């Protein structure tokens, strides 16, 4: 039998968490480095997965299947395709980064490390599940470590934020559970056995009404997670109160569960309904893009600014997802990765300045570039990546989304392009206020620049930002077959025909298809 690499990816962090819990709490000096080392274990696995992944294949690879709960028809069914592969890699990169940047967590260190590792196991599990029951289990279980991370190690309003985060997302998933139960029984009625297999669900014949209800149930769960406007109100609270590691993983990976779910479940499982919902989702996406950016501009708090920028960026991804063209879908997936890298990095930076000054208010800063040149340089670099400067990763994703969305949703695309400009406004203006000019506040004098350890944390992120910027083909080769398969699935069962790929977007995506 082949080595069950996907199970290993899910279980390694979970076992690592158990190992950490066995160490006595007072051995802090052991726990912290050990946590980072343990969190690095899944990384080589993900590397092997990326290397061995068969390019040009649309279907699921490395599939593992074993009966889990016989009576309920639930299986331990894992598989990876072009959509999930990079998200898994992103998760395995970001967790060690987040832990590496949390060396200053000083109470309940053991629990902190264990919760982060459990979170990693859950996140990887969500992306790899091919069984809806299993998917739901991972999707829901993630809430607990995340709520703990916010609730124990967050700032003053942490409890409010943790509970709000938990209740909002739990509400969404409750309705999705009803949808999953309904699907399982439809599966039983049509095939004779109760089952939650994703592939089996694809073969079901769902009436238009059923599709609409199910689409709504799933979409609500994912829209809250993304968050799509107007379900975004939990996000700023959670981000602002969360500790740095929490913010990094929340923005970097957790939000992607929503966009991933829309692409993985809503489009292929309920294609007719998806077409009906395109206008609604597109409007909400565009409102999110502009609203998020506009609110980000006026934030006095640096962390809140980054939080609202997430609302804006994820609006782009939702727009790309529902524009239903080859490039827009690819752009959506690329942008999920990009946003994870850049926003994760921005939260790290905000966390580091907060550790030095114990404030996140933009007005308290000014002229930091002179006292912290490395920090300022990194911030500017990441800001450029986030804005979409050509040559860096953000450009590729936004360009593909705008390019790909224009043929099917021209008006929305033009409207959301405003968001690109606003992104430059809020990030560069924030940069100007924080870093440029003379130091006016004496507290900002003599701040220590980033230490070697702190700088090292950024190395993988910066490397990936540049790599994806100059050689996006590495990612697109993986993504395209699977996103195209989503489109062909929609075309196969509905009247919808995606516009022919062509133009520069096509060149960028490296041909094929």
């Amino acid at each position: 039998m082949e080595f069950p690499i996907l199970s290993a990816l899910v279980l390694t962090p979970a076992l690592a968490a158990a190992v950490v819990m066995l160490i006595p709490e007072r051995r802090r000096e052991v726990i912290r480095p050990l946590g980072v080392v343990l969190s690095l274990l899944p990384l080589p696995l993900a590397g092997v997965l990326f290397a061995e992944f068969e390019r040009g294949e649309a279907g699921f690879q490395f599939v593992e299947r074993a009966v889990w709960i016989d009576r309920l028809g639930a299986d331990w069914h894992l598989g990876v395709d072009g959509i999930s592969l990079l998200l898994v890699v992103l998760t395995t990169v970001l967790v060690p980064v987040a832990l590496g940047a949390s060396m200053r967590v000083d109470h309940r260190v053991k629990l902190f490390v264990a919760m982060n590792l459990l979170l990693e196991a859950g996140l990887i599990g969500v992306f790899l599940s091919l069984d809806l029951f299993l998917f739901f289990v991972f999707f829901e279980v993630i809430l607990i470590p995340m709520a703990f991370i916010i609730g124990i190690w967050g700032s003053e309003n942490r409890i409010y934020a943790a509970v709000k985060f938990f209740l909002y997302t739990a509400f969404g998933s409750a309705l999705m559970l009803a949808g999953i139960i309904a699907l399982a029984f439809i599966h039983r009625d049509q095939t004779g056995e109760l089952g939650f297999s994703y592939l089996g669900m694809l073969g079901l014949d769902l009436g238009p009404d059923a599709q609409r209800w199910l689409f709504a149930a799933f979409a609500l769960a994912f829209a809250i997670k993304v968050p799509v406007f107007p379900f975004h109100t939990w996000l700023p609270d959670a981000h602002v109160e969360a500790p740095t590691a929490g913010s990094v993983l929340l923005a970097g990976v957790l939000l992607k569960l929503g966009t991933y779910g829309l692409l993985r479940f809503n489009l292929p499982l309920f294609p007719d309904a998806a077409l009906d919902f395109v206008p609604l989702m597109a409007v909400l996406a565009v409102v999110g893009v502009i609203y998020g950016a506009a609110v980000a501009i006026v934030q006095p708090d640096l962390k809140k600014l980054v939080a609202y920028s997430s609302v804006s960026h994820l609006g782009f991804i939702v727009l790309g997802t529902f524009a239903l063209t080859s490039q827009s879908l690819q752009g959506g997936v690329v942008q999920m990765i990009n946003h994870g890298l850049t926003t994760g990095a921005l939260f790290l930076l905000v966390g580091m300045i907060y550790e030095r000054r114990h404030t996140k208010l933009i007005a308290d800063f000014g002229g930091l570039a002179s006292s912290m040149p490395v920090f300022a340089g990194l911030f500017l670099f990441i800001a450029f990546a986030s804005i979409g400067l050509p040559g860096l990763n953000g450009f590729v994703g936004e360009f593909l989304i705008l390019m790909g969305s224009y043929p099917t949703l021209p008006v929305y695309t033009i409207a959301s392009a405003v968001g690109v400009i606003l992104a430059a406004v809020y990030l560069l203006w924030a940069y100007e206020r924080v870093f440029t000019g003379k130091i006016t506040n004496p507290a900002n004098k003599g701040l220590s620049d980033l230490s070697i350890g702190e700088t090292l944390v950024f190395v993988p992120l910066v490397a990936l930002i540049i790599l994806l910027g100059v050689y996006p083909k590495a990612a697109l080769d993986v993504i395209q077959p699977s996103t195209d398969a989503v489109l062909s699935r929609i075309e196969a069962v509905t009247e919808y025909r995606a516009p022919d790929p062509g133009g520069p977007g096509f060149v960028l995506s490296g041909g094929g298809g």
Partner: protein
Amino acid sequence: MIDVSYLSAAPEMMLVLGAVAVLMVDVFAKPPPRVHGWITAAAYLAAGASIVLQWQRLGAGGGGLSFGGALVLDPWAAAVRAVLLVVAVLGTLCAWEMLAGLGRRMAEGVSLVLVATAGFMLMGASVDLVMVFIALEIGSIALYVLAGIVRSSPAGDEAAMKYFLLGAFASAIFIYGGALAYAGTGATNLFDIERFLNDYLVARPAVILIGMALLVVGMGFKVTAAPFHSWAPDVYQGAPAGVVGFMAAAAKVGGFAALVHILFIGFARYQGAWSDGLAVIAALSVVLGTLLAIGQSDVRRMLAYSGVAHAGFLLTGMTAGAPAADGLLFYLATYSVMLVGAFAAVTAVSGPAGAGSSFDEYRGLGRRSPVAAAVLALTMIAMSGMPLTTGFIGKFQMFASAWDGGYEWLVIVGLAASVAAFFFYLRLVVLMYFRPGEENGRDPDAPLPLPVTIRWVLLFSAAVTLVFGIYPGPLLGLLTRV
């Protein structure tokens, strides 16, 4: 002619023998608590052995009616006994310190626990309404006394009084329902009632339906279904901490065990009617239990209202009728273990005989007693229905059954309530972990003493909740194989 199969009542006999032995030894020898412990353990072992024999008999195709059709040996009865035995063992361990503290009256307390267990076990085996009633009274009366067994506690007296009055009221309603059912069908035996309803077309079924409804209401009291739940918060709050978990779990298992026989066998023909009725009670219980639990400032009252909601979830599954039985058993078994585990933690916090458990006492428990806090948090998370705990698997089966039975609306209500329920379940977790403990003037790091019996209960409860939450197959198989 009376057909007697001693095996079909053997577990109860063992427990009652144990109770008698405890009392007699106490009269003649005045032994230390340890001796009562050995006798109780022997009684539980003998009961467990008889349950295994019953399973073997069933596996060999045996079983069936005995004692003039009053008792049945069927898979349901055997499995319910196994669940109750586990509850009783855990409950005894949890209450041990309280019982040992009773001094001269310890034997009384121990034998009451044994007798109560025997009564509720009998409820799961009774298929005659008269027998159900007798079993119900055996179990309930023992519980009334247990609620007030700590004489120095006024709260305990109040709890016992309330429990007794409302319990007696419920029993009266139940027996009246039985009388009406007898008037309508000429039988008290559930199989005879079933036969009558199948053989005759009842032109005016009103009497039978009212009888059936009253039977459900009577049991509704016992399982704390809304709107018949009003006694539960007061009793859970006032009774000595050690015994509440046992009390709550055993009564719920016994009540549902009887209800399943009554409705699934006796009144199977009227499933259309009772399904709708149960659905209404289920919705009420889920919604009221959840909403009222949110406002509580006492952990035990909160757990009582959450128990109302859980009765609602169980009833949600019951609407589907016989196909839901396996799921019901899993839910009852795992919920009981969670409940006893949670009350074991409550016992550790409020002391073995204490009454009342204000939320404030749980502040910073994560530091004071990592084990108690972790298990309490786990049971709360499990009760809220989070995946990877038995709570999720149980709830999922209830929802799936109801959905399959055509009660989609009930599932939606249940899911919505589950989300609202996170409020109060999380509140406890928040207090224990997210808030420091200095604020109530106690040393935040003063470790909480954890008696070894309580520790066992906590660990067992956590293990069952997690292991069978992650991999429920073996437990599902065990509970349905017989």
